């Protein structure tokens, strides 16, 4: 373990050294189910073990951001700046993101073995990764991945994605969205990036959500978290509601007592012809039902028939008013 200490160690220091050894073993060497069981047993053995481990692990996990440092610009592959500029350009164009790319994102942009994926409006794509994990990338989204023997990282630059992660305790899958980070603990989860706001819903297993502002939460199946620069809110959602929020995988959107304004905003993610609700009262009208993601017509028909609203097609947008 740790080097040359000739005097007797205090109990706290001896435990800290044991905990540090667990962390480095788990991170850098082969790690089996048996190792995990031994670690779990060690943690359960004594509360001092647990708090010591938590303290070291908390500091160590922060150092993941270090990856953004120490890479001389000369090592940056030539395509990377172009890719980055393109992102910046797209971001500016969509005016979606008010937040700078997180440190992890910066690092990824500089790594050679990076894959990037972009979906246009109205299209979703299934991505299969080398480690057996699968990602469903929703409409109008941008994602970069770097998966190799040592690290599994994805950066969601824009939009929404469903992650079905093949669990590997030794190499947790990390998703970076804005200044927030999600680490899988054996899991299926959804991440949606909306500028500085990030939503995470866990479908299976659990995942850990950490914000750069030092807030964090462990999410279990059915948990939905909304993280912004200053807050982290976690709520339990009925299974059906989370399943409904992922109906886009089947090309559908499910609404239940959803205000028309929200319905329009949701549809607009999938369609170039935008729905504009021009009237405050009309915006509050509640709509329920299942619509195709391309279902602008269906929704406007419902607005017209159910609420007697006026629908005006102006070519590039459809305006709903009273």
């Amino acid at each position, binding site marked *: 373990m740790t080097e040359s200490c000739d005097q007797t160690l205090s109990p706290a220091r001896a435990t800290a050294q044991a905990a540090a050894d667990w962390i*480095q073993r788990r991170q850098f060497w082969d790690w089996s189910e048996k190792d995990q069981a031994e670690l779990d047993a060690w943690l359960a053995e004594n509360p001092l073990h647990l708090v010591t481990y938590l303290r070291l692990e908390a500091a160590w996990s922060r150092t993941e951001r270090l990856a953004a440092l120490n890479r001389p610009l000369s090592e940056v592959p030539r395509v990377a700046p172009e890719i980055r500029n393109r992102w910046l350009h797209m971001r500016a164009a969509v005016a979606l993101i008010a937040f700078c790319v997180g440190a992890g994102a910066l690092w990824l942009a500089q790594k050679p073995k990076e894959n990037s994926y972009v979906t246009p409006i109205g299209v979703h794509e299934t991505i299969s990764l080398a480690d057996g994990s699968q990602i469903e990338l929703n409409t109008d989204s941008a994602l970069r991945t770097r998966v190799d023997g040592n690290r599994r990282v994805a950066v969601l630059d824009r939009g929404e994605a469903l992650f079905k992660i093949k669990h590997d305790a030794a190499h947790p899958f990390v998703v970076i969205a804005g200044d927030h980070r999600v680490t899988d603990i054996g899991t299926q989860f959804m991440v949606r990036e909306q500028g500085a706001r990030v939503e995470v819903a866990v479908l299976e297993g659990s995942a850990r959500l950490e914000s750069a502002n030092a807030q964090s939460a462990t999410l279990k199946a059915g948990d939905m978290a909304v993280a912004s620069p200053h807050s982290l809110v976690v709520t339990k959602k009925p299974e059906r509601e989370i399943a409904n929020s992922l109906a886009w995988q089947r090309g559908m959107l499910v609404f239940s007592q959803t205000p028309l304004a929200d319905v329009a905003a949701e549809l607009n993610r999938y369609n170039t012809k935008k729905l504009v609700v021009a009237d405050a009262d009309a915006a509050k009208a509640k709509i329920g039902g299942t619509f195709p993601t391309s279902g602008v017509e269906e929704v406007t028909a419902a607005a017209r028939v159910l609420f007697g609203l006026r629908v005006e097609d102006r070519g590039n947008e459809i305006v709903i008013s009273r």
Partner: protein
Amino acid sequence: MADQTETSREDGAHRPEAPGVNDVNAWFVREVLPLEPLLMHYLRKQWPNQSEIEDLRQDVYVRVHEAAKKQIPQPAKPFVFRIAHNLLVDRIRREHVVPIEAVADFDELGIAIDAPQPDRSVIARDELRRLQAALDQLPPRAREAVVLGRIEGLNGREIAKRMGIGTATVSAHLANGILALADILTGEVPPQERKS
């Protein structure tokens, strides 16, 4: 699409049922560990034997964590310092040590229990700089191993090959680095007190 009327997980003060262990751990990391510089300052001022400070701190953490398993205390800060105070009083009684100053009021120590914490977004902006500085304070070989592992993404065997040393030594350097980084980042040990 989550609605905004929901309650925050932070707001756990009135929950009657015992919190889950993950919640307690997350709370401990989020609310208690950031108090460490203040806690160390308090313990150093209160306790004569400086070589026991680390043990005392870990005792405080154990007591805080154990208590939180029954109910997560909000806010954390006065709770942690109450526990620290009680621990010192216990130790003084048990060991008949003479404290530097008979456990004074928190106010006298300049620890304002309910003083606002620094803005977390400011902390976040400084994070990379802090991490870089922490890395630079590591013993050279530990730093090298951590850089290779954490930044280059090498595994243990690859680090050993690159550094030209045995795997057991790599483990020792990495563990050493992890330990030192925790001390630096959690902000308690001034550089001159650390040994390589």
